[in-house]
C-alpha cells in the first residue's frame, strides 16, 4: 500500500471535525477527514440547533460563544450551502421568583461580559412569544441568539472543506494512533495507515477511547438528551426557547430536588421550530452510558414540562423521538488544544450541549494553532 501523507488528519465527521477540516483546508493545509460512519452520524445528527449565547457561563465559555456567533455571520455566505441559519433571538423562560433571582444575577454578569440580555415580565414575553403560559413569571430575551440546522451545518462544512481540497473519507474508522518516539504521526485504518504532522481527535464522546492507549485520560462522558419531534406546523414558536431550570440542570444538577422524576432526568426545556415547520422539543440530561435509546419516562417528562410552559403544544402530534449523547466534561468547558505531553496530538472534543454553537470557533482556533 502506498504511503498516504497529509498535514492534518481529523478524526470524526461531526460539526467539530468538519469545522476543523474546513478552516484548516481553507488556510491551505492538506487535510484528510476520517469518519467511521457518515457525516453527522454521531451527536451532531441527534441534537438541537441552538446558537445560544444566553445559556453560556460568563467567562471563557461565553467569550468562545460570542466569537463563534460572529463567525456564523460570515459562514452563511462562505459555505455557499443553506445551513438554515436563522438569527431569530432567544428566550429563557422564568417560572417563579426563585428563578427570576437566579436569572437576574446571570444577566448582570452577562452584561459585564458585553452580552445584552433583557428581562421581560410575562405580558411582554407573551406579546413576543404567543405560546407561553400566562401564569409564568416572564422570560429573558437576547437578540444575539440564533438557530441552525446541525446536519446541514456539518454537510456545509464538509462540502466547503472538499472545495478547499480536503479529502473526506466517510466509512473509514480510525483503529489506532501511530506514535514515533512519543510523537503522534498518523492513524491506522482498515484501508491503510495515514501519516500526518498533526492528528486532530474530534470524535465527540468516542474521543477518550481513541487517546487512552497513549495514556491520556480525558474526562469526557456521554450525557443523554431525549427529544420529541412534532409534525410540521405553521409558525408557532418564534424564538429558540430554553427555561431557567435548563441552566440549573446543565450546570448545577446537584441543586435539584432528586425526588422529582423531572429533576432526576435533568429535564430542561429546549424548543425550536425547524425550517420545515416541525418542532424539536427537548430534553433530558442523563448519564446512561453509550445507550442512545429513548425511554418512556424521559419522553413523558419532556412532554409534561413542555406542556406546562407552552400549553398550546398539548394538541400537536408527535411524529417521532430520538436521543443524542452530549460529550460532557465535569467543568462544562470543551477540551480544545494540544494534548499535554503528546506532541502531534490535538484534542477538539467535549462540547456537551454547546457543540453546534461552538463549532466555528473551535475549527477556527485549531486551524490557527496549526498554521
Amino acid at each position, binding site marked *: 500500500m502506498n504511503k498516504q501523507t497529509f498535514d492534518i488528519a481529523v478524526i470524526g465527521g461531526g460539526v467539530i471535525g468538519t469545522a476543523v477540516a474546513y478552516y484548516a483546508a481553507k488556510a491551505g493545509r492538506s487535510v484528510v477527514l476520517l469518519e467511521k460512519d457518515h457525516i453527522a452520524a454521531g451527536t451532531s445528527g441527534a441534537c438541537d440547533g441552538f446558537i445560544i449565547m444566553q445559556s453560556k457561563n460568563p467567562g471563557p465559555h461565553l467569550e468562545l460563544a460570542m466569537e463563534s456567533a460572529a463567525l456564523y455571520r460570515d459562514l452563511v455566505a462562505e459555505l455557499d450551502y443553506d445551513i438554515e441559519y436563522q438569527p431569530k433571538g432567544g428566550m429563557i423562560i422564568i417560572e417563579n421568583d426563585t428563578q427570576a433571582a437566579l436569572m437576574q444575577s446571570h444577566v448582570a454578569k452577562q452584561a459585564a461580559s458585553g452580552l445584552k440580555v433583557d428581562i421581560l415580565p410575562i405580558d411582554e414575553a407573551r406579546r413576543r412569544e404567543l405560546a407561553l403560559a400566562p401564569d409564568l413569571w416572564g422570560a429573558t430575551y437576547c437578540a444575539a441568539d440564533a438557530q441552525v440546522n446541525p446536519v446541514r451545518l456539518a454537510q456545509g462544512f464538509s462540502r466547503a472543506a472538499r472545495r478547499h481540497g480536503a479529502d473526506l473519507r466517510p466509512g473509514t474508522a480510525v483503529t489506532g494512533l501511530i506514535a514515533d518516539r512519543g510523537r503522534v504521526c498518523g492513524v491506522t485504518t482498515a484501508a491503510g495507515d495515514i501519516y500526518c504532522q498533526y492528528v486532530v481527535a474530534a470524535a465527540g464522546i468516542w474521543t477518550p477511547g481513541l487517546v487512552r492507549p497513549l495514556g491520556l485520560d480525558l474526562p469526557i462522558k456521554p450525557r443523554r438528551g431525549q427529544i420529541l419531534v412534532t409534525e410540521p406546523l405553521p409558525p408557532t414558536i418564534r424564538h429558540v426557547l430554553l427555561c431557567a431550570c435548563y441552566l440549573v440542570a446543565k450546570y448545577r444538577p446537584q441543586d435539584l430536588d432528586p425526588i422529582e422524576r423531572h429533576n432526576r432526568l435533568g429535564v430542561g426545556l429546549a424548543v425550536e421550530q425547524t425550517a420545515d415547520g416541525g418542532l424539536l422539543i427537548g430534553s433530558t440530561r442523563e448519564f446512561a452510558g453509550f445507550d442512545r*435509546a*429513548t*425511554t*418512556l419516562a424521559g*419522553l*413523558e417528562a419532556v412532554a409534561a414540562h413542555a406542556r406546562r410552559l407552552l400549553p398550546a403544544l398539548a394538541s400537536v402530534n408527535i411524529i417521532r*423521538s430520538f436521543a443524542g449523547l452530549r460529550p460532557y466534561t465535569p467543568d462544562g468547558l470543551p477540551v480544545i488544544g494540544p494534548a499535554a505531553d503528546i506532541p502531534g496530538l490535538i484534542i477538539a472534543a467535549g462540547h456537551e450541549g454547546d457543540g453546534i454553537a461552538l463549532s466555528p470557533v473551535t475549527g477556527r482556533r485549531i486551524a490557527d494553532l496549526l498554521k
Partner: protein
Amino acid sequence: MTNNYDIVIAGAGPAGLAAAVEAARRGARTLVVDENTKPGGQLFKQIHKFFGSHEHKAGVRGFAIGEKLLAEAAELGVEVWLNSVVWGLFANKVAVVRGGEQITLAAKKIILATGASENAVAFPGAALPGVMGAGAIQTMINVHRVLPGKRVVMLGSGNVGLIVAYQLLQAGAEVVALVEAASAIGGYGVHAAKIRRAGVPILVGTTIARAFGRGQVEGVVLAKLDESFQPVPGGETTLAIDTVGIAVGLTPLTELAWMAGCQFVFSPRLGGHVPLHDADMETTLSGVYVAGDITGVEEASTAMEEGRLAGIAAAAALGYGAAAAEADKAAVRSRMDVLRSGPFGLGRRTAKAEILAQRKEAASCRE
C-alpha cells in the same frame, strides 16, 4: 384493573387476531390493540372471495373470515382495545394512547402485527384531491359505502389494483383504464380476466405521466413506456377522469420494531426492510415476535398462519400449551409451505427462507 398482560399484540388484522386466538386458547392473558374503530385490519374491506387453496378458505370472502376470527377471539376471552394506538415499545413496556389517554402496559411477550402501508408514486398532479390509494378507495366503497368518483384510472395491476378495480365496477363506477408500467400483468389471471370481461382495458407498458385539474383531478396524461421504462415519444394519451387509484405495492409497517431495536434486513421481494425472525416468528429481541405483512407483504392467509405460529410460540415460552407446542407449530409450518408454493408463492418462500437463514447467522454472531 391491572395493565399486566402475558401477551400484548399490536394490530387486530388477520395476523394479530390469529395470534390472539392461539395464545388465549392455551391460557395466556392476551390483549390486542388496534387503532381503528373496527377490528379485522384489511379483512373487512375484502368483500371478494379469497384466492389460495381451499384449506385456506379460498372462495370465502375476507370479511367472513374476519367475523369468524373475531367470534373465536371473543369466546376465548381475548381483550381487544380499539381506537388505541401503540406508539412505543420500551423494553417490556408497551405505550398506548387510548381515548386520548396515555397508558403503559407491562407485557411478558409482545407480538407486532401492524400490517403494511400503501406505497405512493410521484408524478405532477399526484397531490390533487381525487388521487388516492387503492386501499383508501376500498375502505370508502366497502366499509363506508361511499363512491369516491365516477370515472377512475387505476395505476398498478397487482392483485390489489385488479380487485379494487373490480369492486369499483361493482359499486357503480366506470373504470376507464387500468395502467401498468411493466410489460405484463402483476396479479392473478382470474382477477385480470374478470375486469377484462367487464370491458376495462388493461394497458401494460404504460404509466401516468401527470394528472391535471383545478382544485380536483380532472384528467390524466398516460405515457407509453419502452423496455427500460422510458417514455416513448409521441406515446401520450389524455383521459378525462375524476379519480386516480394508486396500487403500486405495500411497505411493511415496521416503525415499532425499529424503535424496539430489532435487527432488520432489506428484502425487495417482501416490500422493503423487514425485521429478522426465526422459525417461531421471534425477532432478534427476546420476547418480541412479528407476524403478517410486517414481516414482508404477503396475503391474509399467510398472515394468519404466521400469527398462529407467533401465538403458539409466545404462549409456549410462558409455559402455556408447551407440551404440544412443537407439534402444533409443525402443523402450521407445513400449511404455510403449501401457501408459499406455486409460481406466485415460490419467490416469497425463497425470500422467507433467506430471512430465517440470516436470523441464524445474526444469532451466532452474538454468541
